[in-house]
């Protein structure tokens, strides 16, 4: 740990320890009156008294608080003096009389020049704005620009952060009742209404993590107790998610709006559903990540027949849609008043599951509630790969769980998996396994010699690895002691928090 951090730790400790000593050693009755405090403050007590009260004050937080308040009161007076001094320092401005007209001249000159410059390109600013909007240079703009696009959209107002998602997902739900669900509809240019990573719902993200007809995706809901699917979380981070290859339906949207985003899929193996995610591949690192996840998920779900899943998908679709809008916008009940919305929400919500021709197996799977039970059984039978199991890290407390959800993120649940909170890690290497010896302590290992550890359940520290290799397994006994296993089977252990590593035979 850096010396600075130790200082910080020490500062915290001192703060706590010193604050505790209220009246220690001397009862409150011994606290001096304001007259004495004032005399002490003015340094007009004699040496013996001063020493006596020093001792008292050093132990008595009540008196210290009063002295501190006095210090603040008198430092205001000092500040006033300082202010006057500053004013004096600026006195030169008003000093020489001739400076005033000179300054006035200068200001006038500048103003004239400024006006002249503006005159030379009078329409430029407006143009810039006009061009900027379709380009969506500013992520904020993209919401108002795109929301009017859906013909059925009745809520064009961009004011509420969620409302663009709400407005567009609700009409879409209607659409899908009327129209064949599989028909790719070009009239849905905007991609709002996609599931959003927990606690990350900004309009632009909803737009980005769009919902084109052939999207392979995921869904995310608040999962309940024994419920299976926390399926995938797709959240474009950084504003606009890309979805370049998949979202062809978005073609009529300016391309620049779909900028690199990070699509993150999450998986939960706890209930045995290897539900899938992965979608909208963004440019950049996010793409790799989501691709990864998709593969894993698909592999994990081989026992389930895609055909079966697809059969169920259309029926579930309506429900899923409404559920989705409900889940996303618990605020606006009026947009999705279907009675089954709640039910849908409790189940996995899915979207864009429409086209059976699209390989959306894993997602369909997640969508169908009936499938889930079967999936559970089958998954258990098939003994999902230990890799997938490892995505979730148990702690001694069954309520507290970690889940590896992406290259640079981990999720934590403090209620046994019902809700998850995303935390970002300071690494871009893929995390492969983890181990949590206590509730607050957790070790993570992964590619590129990545070893991370937290001792407070929140902040992660990079541990120097024994070597830059791929670690696939870690077993930690506590915050200092752990054994990591490399891909090639070699094992290393540490008993000093990773300062030194020993090879284990």
């Amino acid at each position, binding site marked *: 740990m850096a010396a600075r951090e130790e200082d910080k730790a020490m500062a915290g400790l001192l703060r706590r320890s010193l604050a505790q000593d209220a009246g220690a050693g001397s009862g409150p009755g011994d606290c001096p009156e304001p007259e004495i405090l004032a005399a002490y403050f003015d340094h007009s007590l004699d040496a013996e008294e001063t020493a006596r009260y020093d001792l008292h004050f050093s132990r008595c937080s009540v008196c*210290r608080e009063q002295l501190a308040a006095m210090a603040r009161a008198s430092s205001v007076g000092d500040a006033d003096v300082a202010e006057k001094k500053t004013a004096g320092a600026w006195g030169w401005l008003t000093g020489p009389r001739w400076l005033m007209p000179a300054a006035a001249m200068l200001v006038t000159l500048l103003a004239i020049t400024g006006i002249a410059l503006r005159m030379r390109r009078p329409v430029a600013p407006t143009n810039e704005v006009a061009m900027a909007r379709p380009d969506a240079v500013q992520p904020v703009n993209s919401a108002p620009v795109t929301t009017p696009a859906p013909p059925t959209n009745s809520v064009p107002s961009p004011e509420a952060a969620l409302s663009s998602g709400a407005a567009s997902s609700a009409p879409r739900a209607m659409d899908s009742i009327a129209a064949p669900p599989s028909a790719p509809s070009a009239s849905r240019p905007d991609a709002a209404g996609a599931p959003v990573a927990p606690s990350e719902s900004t309009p632009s993200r909803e737009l980005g993590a769009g919902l084109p007809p052939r999207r392979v995706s995921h869904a995310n809901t608040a999962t309940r107790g024994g419920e299976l699917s926390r399926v995938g979380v797709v959240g474009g981070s950084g504003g606009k998610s890309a979805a370049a290859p998949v979202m062809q339906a978005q073609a009529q949207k300016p391309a620049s709006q779909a900028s690199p985003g990070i699509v993150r899929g999450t998986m939960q193996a706890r209930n045995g559903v290897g539900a899938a995610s992965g979608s909208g591949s963004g440019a950049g690192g996010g793409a790799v990540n989501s691709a990864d996840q998709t593969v894993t998920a698909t592999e994990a779900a081989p026992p389930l027949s895609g055909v079966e899943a697809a059969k169920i998908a259309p029926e579930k679709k309506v429900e899923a849609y409404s559920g989705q809008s409900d889940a996303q916008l618990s605020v606006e009940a009026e947009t999705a008043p279907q009675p089954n919305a709640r039910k849908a929400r409790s189940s996995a919500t899915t979207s864009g599951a429409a086209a059976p021709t699209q390989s959306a197996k894993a997602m369909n799977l997640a969508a169908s509630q009936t499938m889930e039970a079967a999936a559970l059984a089958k998954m258990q039978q098939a003994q999902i790969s230990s890799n997938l199991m490892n995505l979730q890290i148990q702690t001694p407390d069954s309520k507290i769980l970690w889940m590896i959800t992406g290259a640079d993120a981990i999720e934590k649940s403090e209620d046994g998996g019902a809700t998850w909170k995303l935390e970002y890690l300071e690494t871009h290497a893929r995390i492969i396994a983890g181990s949590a010896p206590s509730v607050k302590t957790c070790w993570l290992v992964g590619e590129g010699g990545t070893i991370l550890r937290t001792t407070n359940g929140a902040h992660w520290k990079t541990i120097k690895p024994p070597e830059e290799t791929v670690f696939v397994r870690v077993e930690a006994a506590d915050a200092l002691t752990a054994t990591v296993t490399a891909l090639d089977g070699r094992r290393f252990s540490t008993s000093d928090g990773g300062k030194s590593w020993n090879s284990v035979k």
Partner: protein
Amino acid sequence: MPSSPAGQFVSIDVARDLLQKAGAPAEWNLTAERFRCVLERSVVHRFHCAAASASSSSSRNAAPMADSAGSSDASSGGSPSAAHETRSASPSSTRSDTDPDARAIQAYVDSLHAADLALACACSEGNAAAWDFFMARYRPELYRAGRAIAGESAGRELADSLYAELYGLRQVEGQRKSLFDYFLGRSKLTTWLHAILAQRHVDGIRRARRTEPLEEGEAGEQAYAAQQTFSGRSTGNAPATSSANSLASSAVSSPDPDRNRYLAILQAALTAVLDALEPRDRLRLAYYYVEGLTLAEIGRLVGEHEATVSRKLERTRREIRKRVEGALRQEKKLSAAQLQLCYEYAQEEWPFDLTRALSPGE
């Protein structure tokens, strides 16, 4: 007669001289005898306190008693009244053996802020001119100080609440009692006013803290648990072990025993080291870390330049760390890695905020 019976420390001549030096305007109608009484009270307070440092009887009640005795003294023309007798009775027992010598008293009286004392005295008497002067001179300062202490909105209220008391709307046994009667002249009047504001403010905060329900839910329970531990502590353990205890008990609520064990060890070691600190060093630390004062403010309090404060704080911090680490290595046999882990744990959120949980308990 310089030293009249029943412990008259200040002669009327000294009082008259000082009153002249104070330059109090004539319309304040201050008599030398009245001023002498005020001086007398201040002297009694000062030397009585020094003689009987342990007793807390010199609290608020003592001063008005002395004053009322003094004024009745003046009205009855010098002969010691019954009130005077009762006043001098209690301190005399302690004073008899340590009767301050005349020189010390003279030096003390000379050190007093005579002008401020005269103003306080005249205001206490209810003199309109003095009161006007006080209002003109000190009101802006009171408001400013109030705001600095209690914040923008509460500050004005805090300052306003003083006026009634200063003016003496409060009646004690049919007599008008002014807050000014407590002023001893040992500090500037401004500082004294600040001190009173500060006292009222801190009292108010602490009272509010005591009565306000603890945060609901988990935090509340933990704080409650902490208070329980604290009350256990006040029954008398050594501070070092008791704070370790309180941490150990917090370990019950927090499900990470390893972490709490380390924290407890670290905390115990630190408490021991802090207990051994010089009062001044400890004070500086507390001002800095607990009260959050600036270096300049601390300097004002301890009478040092802020650069000195900074240097000394740094030195104390270094010293503490050295001693704590030494203790942990030698007594607890912690390795360097474990020590570092201690710090790491300490840096993070604690199970709950001891500062907040413990302060209302005292």
